[in-house]
């Protein structure tokens, strides 16, 4: 009984801990970085681990704690080891300082996480100067390498992570000249926004797009456009931090031939976190980028429960009913119902919207048959809303796709 976990961040490490707790003999975590722990390693702020470890940690402390838990549980963590090849039906091909090898485990848990879309993927035109980065790079520069972040920075985006970027800039000796979002408001907690306004006096520019970046060799100026009036203006800065706009690190999932969900762009998974390939599970922010680390960890724990049952001989369901959503809903996760569906991680589906809505009414139907009709608290772009999963018991496993839509926006 060997289970390989791909990715040693919160989801992967939590999966490894749970698999060992379920007496899985060999659990191997493959981590391409030199240290396990994932993104929290360089997210210095507090608030990690409330939901899963029931105690607040800083990011680095949380990362260390999980690595320790996994090691104590008897999982083997191989760092600096990257899966460089995987074909549908084929073994895992590994590369590391010790050489190359292949593994053919009984089950695989994919927990490869997500990353922020860089400037190029957002098609922001202009020159290509130094000083343009994502929050991930910024945090590593400041917290892992102890380097300065620049003098004057513009933050693009106004989600949780954007405020984390703001704090990191402050720590790295830079001043944030502004925070620009194309939306009509920020997407974080009022408390964070209020605290940031008070502490750093950083203005929030809503309905504002970055239309060009200029400078050489370093950023000198950014052109901003007011989306309501079309007016443009220039802001002087030497650093631009593109935040959020998450995309799953899905290369391995694609290489492995898994069915992908067009909304999340991660592998399509059922409520037990099974992918379309037998013996392959997925968890964490690969499925829904980005959730807080503890939510990702709970997802890893959830996938491990099914993976543990699977390697002990439980059957793999053969019929999969897709769960689809309609605009302004962007995606739902999990997005498949298979066999006799069990409740998803935390008992809820995660719903994402491209628009704000307060108290919207949601309907879940299958071939015109109403499965659920009710209100949820609110929809905020970039943040998951939780949709209770009680209705899954009423789904016809031989039926057509389940549809989720907003019928009234509050």
């Amino acid at each position: 009984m060997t289970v390989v976990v791909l990715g040693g961040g919160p989801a992967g490490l939590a999966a490894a801990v749970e698999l060992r707790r379920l007496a899985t003999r060999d659990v191997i975590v493959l981590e391409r970085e030199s240290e396990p722990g994932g993104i929290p390693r360089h997210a210095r702020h507090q608030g990690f681990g409330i939901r899963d470890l029931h105690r607040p940690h800083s990011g680095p402390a949380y990362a260390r704690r999980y690595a320790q838990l996994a090691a104590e549980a008897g999982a083997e963590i191989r760092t600096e080891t990257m899966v460089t090849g995987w074909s549908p039906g084929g073994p895992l091909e590994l590369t590391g300082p010790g050489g190359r090898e292949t593994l053919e485990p009984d089950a695989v848990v994919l927990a490869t996480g997500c990353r922020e879309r860089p400037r190029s993927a957002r098609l922001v035109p202009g020159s290509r100067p130094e000083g343009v980065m994502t929050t991930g790079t910024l945090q590593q520069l400041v917290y892992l390498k102890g380097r300065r972040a620049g003098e004057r920075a513009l933050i693009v985006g106004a989600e949780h992570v954007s405020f984390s970027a703001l704090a990191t800039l402050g720590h790295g000796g830079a001043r944030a000249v502004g925070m620009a979002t194309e939306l009509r408001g920020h997407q974080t907690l009022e408390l964070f926004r209020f605290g940031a306004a008070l502490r750093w006096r950083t203005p929030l520019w809503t309905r504002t797009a970055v239309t060009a970046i200029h400078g050489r060799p370093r950023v000198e100026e950014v052109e901003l456009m007011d989306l309501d009036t079309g007016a443009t203006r220039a802001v002087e800065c030497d650093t631009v931090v593109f935040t959020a706009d998450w995309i799953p690190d899905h290369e391995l999932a694609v290489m492995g031939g898994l069915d992908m969900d067009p909304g999340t762009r991660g592998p399509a998974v059922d409520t037990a976190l099974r992918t379309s390939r037998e013996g392959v599970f997925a968890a964490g922010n690969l499925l829904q980028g980005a959730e807080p680390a503890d939510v990702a960890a709970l997802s890893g724990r959830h996938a491990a429960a099914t993976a543990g049952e699977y390697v002990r001989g439980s059957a793999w369901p053969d019929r999969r009913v897709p769960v689809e959503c309609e605009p302004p809903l962007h995606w739902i996760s999990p997005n498949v119902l298979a066999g006799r569906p069990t409740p998803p991680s935390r008992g809820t589906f995660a719903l994402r919207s491209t628009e704000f809505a307060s108290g919207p009414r949601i309907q879940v139907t299958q071939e015109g048959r109403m499965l659920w009709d009710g209100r949820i608290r609110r929809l905020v772009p970039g943040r998951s809303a939780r949709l209770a999963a009680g209705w899954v018991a009423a789904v016809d496993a031989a039926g057509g796709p389940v549809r989720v839509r907003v019928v009234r926006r509050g």
Partner: protein
Amino acid sequence: MRESPDTDVAIVGAGVVGCAIARELSRFDLSVTLLEAGADVGAGTSKANTALLHTGFDAKPGTLESRLVARGYELLSEYAPRVGIPVERTGALLVAWTEEQAAEFPAILEAARANGSVDLRRVDAEELYGREPHLAPGALGAIEVAREGLVCPFTTPLAYATEAVLSGCDLRRSTPVESVARLEGGGFRLTLPGGALTAGRLVNAAGLRSDELDRMLGHDGFTVTPRRGELIVFDKLARPLVRHIVLAVPTKITKGVLIAPTVFGNVMLGPTAEDVERKDDTASTRAGLDYLMSEGGRIMPELLEHEVTAVYAGLRAATEHADYQVSVHAPEGYACVGGIRSTGLTASMAIAEHVREQLGETGLRLEPKTGAPPEFRMPNIGEAGIRAHQSDDLIGRDAEYGRIVCFCERATSGEIRDALTATVPAVDLDGLRRRTRAHMGRCQGFFCGAELAERLDAAEAS
């Protein structure tokens, strides 16, 4: 000139053409100095090339460009595998979408024959879709150019420069020529930031600035109008969509937008063609990117479902003339190599050979060096060859080649170390990127950016 000059030949400009000339001349018993204003070789126009290995089938018959591209294709095809320059022979399909475009086919085939290209063949719509199943519907047919291929635009000038330096060429980067004067009795005096340099012969391979240098010497043969080409590079996951270089039927103004694989395993869409005023205006534009995305959607809609990995813009050194502007002024010992457009990557070795022959006719003594030519091989950064992380042999000898630092492009710690200590070492992030592929992938530094910055600083400090 009475005293012997500091160098027999000074070459101004270390783009792909200047590097090729430096390599060519370094094979002879001469002292050669290669001067580059920028921080690195191949870091200007050369790096933003569409990276095609052209057969020259579509050149204007009878031109110098036609002859040098065809000859350069042969020379580079022989040289590239020998020194480790990535090349892929994908073949090209020139697709007609309208009857008007299809009506151009006979003329294209005729011109190709005149250029000595014999590998062209008409392909009907059925075969076209069999070979490029992801093309948008509506294509009428194509011309296949079987020998067209891809060549690495980064490794090529680096390989030339490496061989030149190993053969004794004095490469000086970050060394702009501030002024140049002819010396009484022959030769040239170049004013550089660190002082003067005298040279017996002068080769102008200054690319976008070649007309300015030409005028400093009293000539007035051409004017460079920078023509900007914007390019979009798509994620490697899009690579299975495209098998060949998909060309458009050219118009008088442009060769049109092409979709092609890259030697790094991505898919490229571009270029635009727009005359700009400034010779440093390599900024991409909203209009250019929007145009490319709409063309991409028209040619291959599925491509647009993939993530964009990089956007860049390069400047071609276009002139008012249709042909390359290569002239050798025998009495003064000055060679000007201007107006070299995107085909110059393919033609580079032939241009160098041509310039060397012409300089020989000016009386430059060309005695081949005695002894074996330098042994060297460039690290492979092409997707078709074996990368360091795929080599059991390399990793077995040195674990650093198994330590992947850039996850997206799988550049290893060993390769990064090598690039920082190479014969022509990387001095900045862009140089590291062009030598190892580090930081050029889909995450654009999310994972490795901080690590690379630290390594560059450490290399600079040591």
